[in-house]
């Protein structure tokens, strides 16, 4: 449902069939694993069986003699990487760590860490050859948990890593804590001293994976002229290009990255893993090489999100949240770079709180290097604060939504970093939740409970570039460089159709490769419909201008005498009205100045932040501990919903991932650092049978920073579910769970005192 009033738009807000829909449902769409090239051979990687070890020696000689083998690769084949940070399109990357994560050099830092690669005529030959590679390891004790890793006597992942402060100071001794950050305001201790009620708890979450269906893949052809072509599944072909160029020390202009259709990413398809390996195997073998990950590889060696430990203390006085003290420790995985900064920055953003001190710690552990995962850092932080607020509401006898409304952030409220919010929609979300049919209905029956929670995500702008070429039949080819994960071919084509006053189906969107369109940042940060949408709008205005000029020239008037609206150029004088349609001008392009091409290229500013408030009803089986989601309502400020079905889809998808995170998903490690559940059988993501229809309530508070009011919508829906479900379980059982997942095992052990 939506709460929109009458729309001023003709195309925006409708629900056309996506341009890529037919190809996808008929199986014709080409994904990375579908790439087949003449002479193509198959690459496979050898991965470390140890979570933490020095590599003393790698002997590949026997593997090189195996049948069908055309190339074998170790880190020695990579150019020496510089130990320095570089901005490569998605945050800064340490080049040596980037290179070492692709093929380990001196040390393996997690089980599954790649150490060598083979290319052979068949995948089976490549697999058999891997078994002949001899790697001598000196095995070290692994450290797997963030709190263990922070202890002074913990095994060190790197002897040269010191804790960095924003001040530039470094710790005296090497540490697994890569950095510390802090947000602070007011007098926290004084506020606690005056509080009516205080909740103090430790919250923990486990490492979880994005769970995209499609494993990572890369096919590369190192061509005779020294150019490289890469076909891959990625959220950002330009980031792949930049990172491959850096790892291989190869000029960026000689690398062409062709983004294939993408079977899910959620942040996990931003880093590169296989692309440089496929490229070098191709160079060595002289053949195109395709490399695929198995599902186990994906779990063990791609980029899940952090396990976390958050120590939190919250105080209220007269119903006002007056004090928060929080220590957030996030697992970065093998190399520094957890999303603890985002967690710390965003955890209090739905609220106006005067006194707080938030400390964040980025901690390396012997697990895969974490990557972005949908609102990275925010869900764990929201799990903590939103659980604590629920307990406080009960303590002071307040309705949990009323407590959130009373303390809501509004325009002008300062975020923890001190900046003032522009127009935001949290209060509207809480109001819509309070007034929803769901919240107003009673929750009845034994073992049932209801929970609510809010969430915030900052959203991104960044760079986008598009070209729109007008065809002589009045259609428009829209060339964009943002890979389409969530229906953005549709949402961008719709914005161009709206700008040009044309029907949706005359716009033909295509996602182009890195040789065929200007630079685009990744499809991530909920930015594509927002930022590429702005570029599309700019390209549409460019076409409008050219159409007006052509028509005006024909009529012998100045361009500013004519107007463009509803797909027509109009000249109005006292005596007459002349009109030319878009198609008529397009048809005559050859004789009026040549092809009409619009362009839009920009760094988008003004990404509005996203807020959401969720309501969930659960039933807990007291004998088995199994939690059933009975009803779920997700209220979200979506700015303007360009294609409401895909906005609802984003919200529903985020909620489902949140349900999985809350109830069952976790990296389950044995003591040696082996993930014991690296399959979809045992890594228990929800299936369609585990979730009810999720009711998405779209609150449309248009973003003033976008021509059509767009806000990013994709990430914030995963922020509230963890706490909302914990709060519902507490309501149903009287037991407060502060550790995820709230699996049947943990629930039944808690309810029956079994552990």
């Amino acid at each position: 449902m939506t709460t929109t009033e009458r729309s001023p738009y003709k195309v925006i807000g409708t629900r056309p069939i996506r341009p890529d829909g037919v190809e996808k449902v008929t199986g014709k769409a080409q994904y990375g694993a579908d790439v087949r090239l003449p002479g193509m051979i198959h690459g496979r990687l050898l991965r470390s069986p140890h979570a933490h070890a020095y590599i003393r020696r790698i002997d590949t000689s026997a593997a090189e003699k195996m049948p069908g083998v055309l190339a074998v690769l170790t880190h020695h084949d990579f150019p020496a990487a510089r130990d320095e940070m570089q901005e490569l399109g998605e945050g800064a990357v340490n080049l040596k760590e980037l290179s070492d994560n692709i093929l380990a050099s001196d040390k393996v830092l997690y089980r599954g860490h790649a150490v060598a690669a083979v290319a052979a005529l068949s995948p089976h030959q490549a697999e058999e050859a891997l078994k002949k590679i001899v790697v001598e390891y000196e095995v070290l004790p692994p450290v797997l948990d963030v709190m263990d890793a922070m202890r002074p006597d913990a095994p060190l992942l790197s002897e040269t890593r010191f804790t960095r402060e924003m001040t530039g100071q470094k710790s005296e001794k090497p540490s697994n804590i890569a950095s510390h950050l802090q947000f602070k305001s007011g007098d926290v201790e004084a506020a606690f001293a005056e509080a009516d009620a205080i909740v103090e708890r430790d919250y923990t979450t486990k490492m979880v994976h994005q769970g995209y269906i499609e494993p990572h893949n890369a096919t590369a052809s190192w061509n005779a002229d020294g150019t490289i072509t890469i076909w891959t599944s990625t959220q950002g072909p330009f980031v792949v290009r930049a990172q491959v160029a850096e790892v291989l020390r190869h000029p960026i202009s000689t690398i062409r990255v062709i983004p294939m259709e993408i079977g899910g990413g959620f942040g996990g398809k931003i880093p590169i893993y296989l692309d440089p390996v496929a490229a070098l195997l191709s160079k060595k073998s002289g053949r195109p090489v395709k490399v695929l990950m198995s599902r186990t590889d994906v779990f063990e060696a791609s980029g899940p999100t952090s396990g976390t430990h958050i120590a939190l203390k919250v105080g209220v006085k007269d119903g006002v949240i007056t004090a928060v003290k929080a220590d957030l420790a996030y697992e970065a995985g093998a190399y520094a770079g957890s999303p603890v900064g985002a967690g710390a920055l965003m955890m209090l953003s739905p609220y106006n709180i005067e006194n707080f001190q938030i400390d964040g710690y980025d901690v390396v552990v012997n697990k895969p290097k974490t990557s972005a995962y949908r609102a990275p850092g925010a869900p764990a932080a929201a799990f903590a604060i939103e659980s604590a607020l629920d307990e406080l509401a009960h303590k002071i006898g307040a309705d949990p939504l009323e407590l959130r409304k009373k303390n809501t952030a509004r325009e002008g409220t300062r975020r923890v970093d001190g900046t003032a919010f522009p127009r935001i929609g949290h209060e509207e979300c809480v109001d819509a939740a309070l007034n929803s049919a769901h919240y107003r209905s009673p929750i009845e029956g034994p073992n049932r409970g209801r929970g609510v929670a809010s969430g915030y995500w900052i959203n991104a702008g960044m760079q986008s570039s598009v070209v729109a070429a007008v065809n002589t039949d009045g259609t428009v080819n829209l060339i964009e460089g943002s890979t389409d994960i969530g229906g953005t071919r549709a949402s961008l084509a719709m914005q161009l159709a709206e700008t040009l006053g044309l029907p949706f189906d005359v716009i033909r969107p295509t996602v182009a490769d890195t040789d065929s369109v200007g630079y685009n940042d990744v499809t991530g940060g909920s930015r594509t419909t927002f930022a590429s949408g702005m570029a599309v709008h700019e390209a549409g205005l460019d076409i409008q201008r050219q159409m007006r000029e052509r028509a005006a020239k024909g009529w012998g008037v100045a361009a500013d005498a004519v107007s463009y609206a509803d797909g027509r150029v109009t000249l109005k004088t006292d005596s007459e009205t002349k009109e030319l349609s878009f198609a008529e001008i397009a048809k005559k392009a050859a004789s009026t100045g040549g092809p009409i091409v619009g362009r839009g290229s920009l760094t988008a500013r003004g990404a509005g932040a996203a807020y959401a408030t969720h309501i969930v009803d659960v039933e807990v089986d007291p004998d088995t501990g199994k939690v059933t989601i009975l009803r779920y309502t997700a209220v979200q400020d979506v700015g303007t919903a360009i294609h409401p079905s895909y906005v609802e889809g984003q919200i529903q998808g985020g909620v489902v991932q949140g349900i999985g995170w809350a109830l069952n998903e976790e990296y389950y490690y044995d003591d040696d650092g082996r993930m014991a559940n690296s399959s979809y059988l045992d890594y228990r993501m929800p299936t369609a049978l585990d979730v009810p229809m999720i009711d998405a309530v779209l609150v449309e508070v248009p973003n003033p920073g976008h021509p059509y009011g767009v806000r990013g919508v994709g990430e914030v829906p995963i922020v509230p579910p963890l706490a909302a479900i914990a709060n519902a379980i507490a309501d149903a059982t009287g037991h407060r769970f502060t550790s995820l997942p709230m699996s049947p095992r943990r629930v039944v052990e808690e309810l029956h005192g079994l552990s």
Partner: protein
Amino acid sequence: MAMVIVPAPLRDLCGGAARLDVAGATLEELLRNVDALCPGFYGRVIENGQVRPEVAVAINGEAANYPLFEPLSPGSEVTIIPAIGGG
């Protein structure tokens, strides 16, 4: 005058101040002027002519890849936050 919101870890450089009103028509000018009041501040934010990779500059609440010549208007609010990635 723009307002600089001093991040908690850098307040020691600024005598404990959480906010400063400082003149500056561009980001570069502003940060230089802050550095005059809080020695060392500029170097914590800028390295080799660019914002350091581990931090981001937010102007009026929006973090972006600002150039040093980014113009500021009177009343602009500038702060330094940890770099954030999105999924």
